């Protein structure tokens, strides 16, 4: 067990713990802030796995844009800022499904990869990611812009109102 392994596990625990806090806290705003911790921890995991570009994208897009968007949505709508007790549901079924699928997946991965050794890949730099995206994967990448354009048109259609 190397230092990297220890750090990976520790950061993973932080990610899982804060993810639990996201879904169990009664404050909407706090849930959003816990999400920052979760996504940040995932970014650290990427860094530890030597995928630096992906890690920075994770910080920029998820921690930066998505969470800010989420908090803005909470502020701009009339969502409750304080404790919202009506969010609670009976804990039994939720625990059963959540813990069941979570532990099941963890067990599955542990069992499936139990004797697989993966050599650490070369560092995931921006150059390598760029070469992959604009080389072999250029078509799906460009098609994603179609998706964005369609979403843009749709957003305008749904929200535009002549006065």
């Amino acid at each position, binding site marked *: 067990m190397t230092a990297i392994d220890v750090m990976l596990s520790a950061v993973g625990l932080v990610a899982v713990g804060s993810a639990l806090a996201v879904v169990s806290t009664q404050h909407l705003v706090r849930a959003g802030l816990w999400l920052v911790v979760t996504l940040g921890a995932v970014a650290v995991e990427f860094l530890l796995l030597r995928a630096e570009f992906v890690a920075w994208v994770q910080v920029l897009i998820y921690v930066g844009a998505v969470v800010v968007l989420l908090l803005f949505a909470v502020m701009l709508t009339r969502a409750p800022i304080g404790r919202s007790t009506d969010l609670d549901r009976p804990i039994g079924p939720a625990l059963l499904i959540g813990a069941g699928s979570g532990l099941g997946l963890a067990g599955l991965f542990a069992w499936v990869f139990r004797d697989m050794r993966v050599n650490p890949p070369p560092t995931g730099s921006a150059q390598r990611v760029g070469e992959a995206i604009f080389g072999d994967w250029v078509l799906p990448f460009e098609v994603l812009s179609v998706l964005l354009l369609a979403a843009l048109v749709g957003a305008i259609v*749904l929200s535009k109102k002549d006065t």
Partner: protein
Amino acid sequence: MDKLKLPDMDYVALLPMLALFVAACLGVIIEALVPRRFRNIIQLVLSIVALAVAMFFVVKQSGEVVASKALTAGGAIMIDHAALFLQGALIVLGFVALLLFGERSLEFGGPFVAQAAVTVGSERDREQTGRELGSTETFPLALFSLSGMLLFVSANDLLTMFVALEVFSLPLYLLCALARRKRLLSQESALKYFLLGAYASAFFLFGVAMVYGFAKAVDFKAIHAEALLGEGNSLLLIIGLALLAIGLLFKVAAAPFHVWTPDVYQGAPTPVTAFMASCTKVAAFGGLLRVLYVGFDGLGWQFTPVLGAIAALTVLVGSILAVTQTDLKRLLAYSSVANAGYILIGVIAGQQLGLTSVLFYLVAYGFTVIAAFALISLVRDADGEATHLSRWAGLGARSPLYAGIFTFILLAFAGIPLTSGFIAKLSVFGAAIDGGQTWLVIIGVITSIILAFPYLRVVVMMWLSEPGESTPSVSIPGGLTSTALGIGTLATLVFGVVPGPLLDLAEKASSFVR
């Protein structure tokens, strides 16, 4: 620094998609520049021209497909005969459905709401329902969706497939929300479809990750090779396939992933419902076939029993729940669930016979279902379409022509000889017996009989009841709906009487290149 090396692009192979995409972009610009009252006709003409161009290139390629040329764009796209057949079917069915989009004579301003942001039920809303021209952004959205479908049926790896899945789904979610009448129902259906669709996409993506964990690649050829090799943990592969299948079966509306279907079919504007019922089915089954028979061929004996159970459940759920429906659009939604089950039976049958029957069924069903929804959009009263079953009582006396056409369509759904529905069911069941799935055929025949009951009930109601006070009038359709209705009905008849040419075409197309 080295120059970036781009993969070889065969632009002719991409042209059908590019044509639709360019037309959609032009459509967006038209929205900004052209006055409202001209937009509908310009958008319609533009879309039809784009579809014609796309069809031209599909037909052109179908004559010259060779294996070396089939794979293009860095291995992202596979242009084989099956892909071209599906693309052609999508374009033709999309054309017929788009005719319904453009119809403006049934109701002032067309079937779509003018401003979706106006609060439902407000003064402003009542004003716009009767007086404002509907939004025409629906054409670019539909074209975006169609271009995504064309990519979906020709995608050669799971990642491209996922991107295409999103590209064709997102515009559909949006289109569902734009009905002119019954807007709350329409918005609810869009939200429901969006949430469940996002959930299904997540399953699909998770499946991709699992399969990548097994094969260390996402293209079908590598997955197939790795599965044959038998190294690595096949549990990962099986769970990956199961998750992928959940994502795809959601799109084809197979039980138990069908729950969105009735709500969305009922709430969406009828032209959009017609578009979804025909084109989405073709695309989703095309994708399913490619995943199963190109990527996971080696797992056949493992997924066949599971898929068989799902097919049996789907036909049972669809046909039994169709009996209890009182709304015509919901009835057709459950009938579409059951039909997804019949097509699944053909998918399970496999071999060339099974694939041929699936391709034939998809096209035949697509035409019939568009005609059915075109007719539903004609029967209206002051509040828009009258879809409740009781309102159709006595329609035969009011307008024998349309009641007659609808009767014919329902008989085609029920699978009466001389309709395309009969040939389609016959070929699917024949292929299933050939493939050793006799138990599915028995269930299929029994559910067909159950399913005939709701259809015949509508027929009896239309012809044998007296027209009452509440029987709505049938609008005289404009040229566009008549054309769509005519094409759909004629195709149902022609494929029923002379199915040979289409069956030949489907047989030629029924081979996937790995």
